[in-house]
């Protein structure tokens, strides 16, 4: 078998914010580090992030600090977050943002010359450091330029298809089973490549491509989630999928493309076809104390946060998405089946173009809508997965020695629902921690791992299978059927009978995937690439469906029509997925880690 081989201390899979931050940290701690990514450098999902990075820097509101951010994050996640992750995140985010400036980032400024911060849903104070509405671009370019400046090796357009495990020597503890490397192929040539390394950091992002309407790109096929499971790690919170309330809905070809929450943070409101600001009818008791009751109060809040409460349009995303869903179901939707998002009647054209340049451009170019003059039509779109690899909060270590996970692929940080802006900060905080821990682990085990030859041969054989079959189905059709299944049966609103049907269909799709065949040859062949992504998508979809069926309550990004209330017992229970010996997914219930009293107190002292 023709195989390119490399040896490193740390291999980072993924070149988004989490992966690049991990690589920088691993490198700076003396580890020989490589980054592997499916697209060109700088094109990962992080580039698309718009609104900003949440960090309690207190530049505009000195009252803000990590404790308020911690509390907002936990409440946004309906208290299911791993408290320790939420704590580290809130404490460290400001430093992680400031350090980006040392690497060249240029955030928008306050009149005092500090980093400006904007309002977002679920955040008590204006907290999101931003650059217009292209914050993700600034973040990824800064990290990319830093990575290049440090001379870190980047394998771009290269896909990892297997994690390798085996005996690991060193570290004083004798021999144990752990990570020994990774296997993949170059997209350009189709040739195989293997990296030998005692530490692998997964930073592969999310799973949204399993859904029909999504803000996510082709890369989001859940590879990291699936690779982790197959290597023996666990996934937590997989039932929680975030549907962002505002995706584009018209024309059909742009359906799902994100409309940033900054539109609402900067003053935009939601209206139904009758022109009503319907969000006032959907304020849940859990957030009533901190939400405005009248339009006047809501409008005053933008200027005076002390004496007014937040507009209901800025409730956490799960609440807003469900409300939109209900309005449309009740027949109060727009001509194309969404609701109106109006900033035109509320802010000047100049302000809108300045604060939301890429939204202005996006609607103008793709929908022929001038958002400074008319409302947008929007509806929910699959956006983010809260679930992911179960990790140690301080080190981002998964249950398999040598495996680490950070960013969207990791679970626990966001509980049942993520607040806007908390992902970019998550990437930086836990990317850094993962890189540090991965370097430490690797330096203890240098020379202690070898590439398992049998596994390499097996991985190569498996990757080539779709070429060996003839007359089988086309991978694009199977992908579309999966997307339709997840959209219809495991979407925003779920019921037991529908989820059961989804599981049956997933099993059927699995048989179809085993029979796929692809045209052409190995060189830059997207049909083949998709054929190799599909098993990941199916495995992750099964995790989502199984966990969604098991959790008989509604909470955050998981709404059960047949169990519409939250349930006290489920409030302290996590669902954990492992790979069963037969290749299926099995679930276990695990108690939620309980926060220490000094953190619990924050919920009493910080006003609502």
């Amino acid at each position, binding site marked *: 078998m023709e195989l390119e081989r490399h040896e490193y201390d740390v291999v980072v899979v993924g070149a988004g914010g989490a992966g690049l931050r991990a690589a920088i940290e691993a490198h700076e701690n003396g580890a020989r580090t490589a980054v592997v990514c499916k697209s060109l450098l700088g*094109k990962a999902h992080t580039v698309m992030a718009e609104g900003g990075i949440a960090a309690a820097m207190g530049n505009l509101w000195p009252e803000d600090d990590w404790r308020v951010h911690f509390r907002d994050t936990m409440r946004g996640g309906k208290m299911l977050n791993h408290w320790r992750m939420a704590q580290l995140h809130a404490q460290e985010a400001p430093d992680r943002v400031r350090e980006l*400036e040392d690497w060249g980032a*240029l955030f928008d*400024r306050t009149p005092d010359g500090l980093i400006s911060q904007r309002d977002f849903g679920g955040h008590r104070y204006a907290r999101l450091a931003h650059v217009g509405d292209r914050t993700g671009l600034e973040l990824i370019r800064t990290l990319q330029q830093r990575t290049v400046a440090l001379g870190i090796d980047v394998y771009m357009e290269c896909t990892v298809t297997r994690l390798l495990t085996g005996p690991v020597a060193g570290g004083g503890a004798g021999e144990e089973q752990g990570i020994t490397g990774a296997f993949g192929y170059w997209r350009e040539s189709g040739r195989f490549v293997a990296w030998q390394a005692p530490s692998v950091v997964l930073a592969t992002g999310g799973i949204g491509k399993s859904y029909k309407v999504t803000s996510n*790109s082709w*890369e989001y096929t859940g590879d990291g989630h699936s690779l982790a499971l197959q290597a023996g790690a666990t996934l937590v919170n997989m039932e929680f999928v975030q549907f962002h309330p505002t995706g584009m809905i018209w024309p059909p070809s742009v359906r799902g493309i994100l409309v940033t929450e900054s539109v609402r943070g900067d003053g935009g409101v939601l209206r139904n076809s009758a022109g009503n600001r319907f969000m006032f009818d959907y304020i849940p008791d859990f957030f009533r104390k901190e939400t405005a009751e009248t339009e006047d109060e809501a409008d005053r809040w933008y200027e005076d946060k002390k004496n007014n409460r937040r507009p209901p349009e800025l409730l956490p995303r799960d609440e807003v998405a469900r409300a939109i869903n209900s309005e449309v179901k009740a027949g109060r939707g727009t001509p194309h089946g969404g609701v109106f998002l109006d900033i035109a009647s509320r802010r000047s054209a100049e302000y809108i173009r300045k604060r939301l340049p890429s939204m202005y451009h996006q609607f103008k170019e793709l*929908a022929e809508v001038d958002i400074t003059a008319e409302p947008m039509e929007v509806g929910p779109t699959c956006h983010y997965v809260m679930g992911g690899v179960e990790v140690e909060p301080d080190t981002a270590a998964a249950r398999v020695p040598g495996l680490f996970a950070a960013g969207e692929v990791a679970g626990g940080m966001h509980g049942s629902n993520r607040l806007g802006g908390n992902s970019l900060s998550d990437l930086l905080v836990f990317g850094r921690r993962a890189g540090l821990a991965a370097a430490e682990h690797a330096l203890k085990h240098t020379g202690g791992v070898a590439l398992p030859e049998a596994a390499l041969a097996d991985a190569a054989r498996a990757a080539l299978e779709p070429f060996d079959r003839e007359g089988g189905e086309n991978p694009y059709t199977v992908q579309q059927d999966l997307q339709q299944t997840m959209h219809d049966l495991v979407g925003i609103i779920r019921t037991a009978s529908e989820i059961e049907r989804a599981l049956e269909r997933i099993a059927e799709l699995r048989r179809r995937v085993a029979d796929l065949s*692809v*045209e052409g040859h190995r060189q830059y062949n*997207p049909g083949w690439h998709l054929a190799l992504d599909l098993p990941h998508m199916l495995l992750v979809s099964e995790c989502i469906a199984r966990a969604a069926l098991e959790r008989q309550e509604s909470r955050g990004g998981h709404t059960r029509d047949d169990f519409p209330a939250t349930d006290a017992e489920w409030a302290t229970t996590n669902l954990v997925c492992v790979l069963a010996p037969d290749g299926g997914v099995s679930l276990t219930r695990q108690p939620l880690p309980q926060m220490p009293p000094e953190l619990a107190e924050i919920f009493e002292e910080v006003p609502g």
Partner: protein
Amino acid sequence: MSYDATFRVWRGDATGGDLQTFTVEVNEGEVVLDVIHRLQASQAGDLAVRWNCKAGKCGSCSAEVNGRPRLLCMTRMSTFAETETVTITPLRAFPVIRDLVTDVSYNYVKAAQIPAFTPGPRDADGAHRMQQVDVERSQEFRKCIECWLCQDTCHVIRDHEENKAAFAGPRFLIRLAELDMHPLDVLDRREDAQDQFGLGYCNITKCCSEVCPEGIHLTDNGIIPLKERVADRRFDPLTWLGSRIGRRPRS
């Protein structure tokens, strides 16, 4: 609402290829990338194309549409007559890998050669203070999504492979301008701009500004001011002295 369009798509690899003709359905509101995806799903499963965001944010889907450098995801089908044949070819300035995918490694090599951002110290309280007006000049260039359309267009390299060694292309000239205008950066890269990155090759035709999907004024706001600053440096003995003793000369 929907109609059948005629598409001619270049297919092939480094050893050669040709335009293949397809008849393909087009629906209301679609962009060229949607049509390419429909071809992949229905007629040519192995048709190679790059894309990620489908919203003009990542700069992956660059190609030439009827001979013009464009983002496929931001080129609406409604800009063509229904009877018009739409021809899609790979970026001409870069070697083909396969179909619409080209080898853009030239750009990554140039990026790595630019002396990295080098900040001055933070204020006593740990913050970097900068005024909005001062960051805006560099922010314009940081909007760049690295789609390489300007690189593809610039006549210095479009049909002149031999100039690539000495010329970094408009994208990296504005990267140099960005660093030069960055309020925190303390390095002087003007000599490099001229000697290593080929600033002098640019004769200000402004073609790069015309194709930039981000609307960056590469020439007016980046390249011309940089040329002026290089000229300053070359003729002003005081600036020269300033840079010798390691301080950042204030233009």
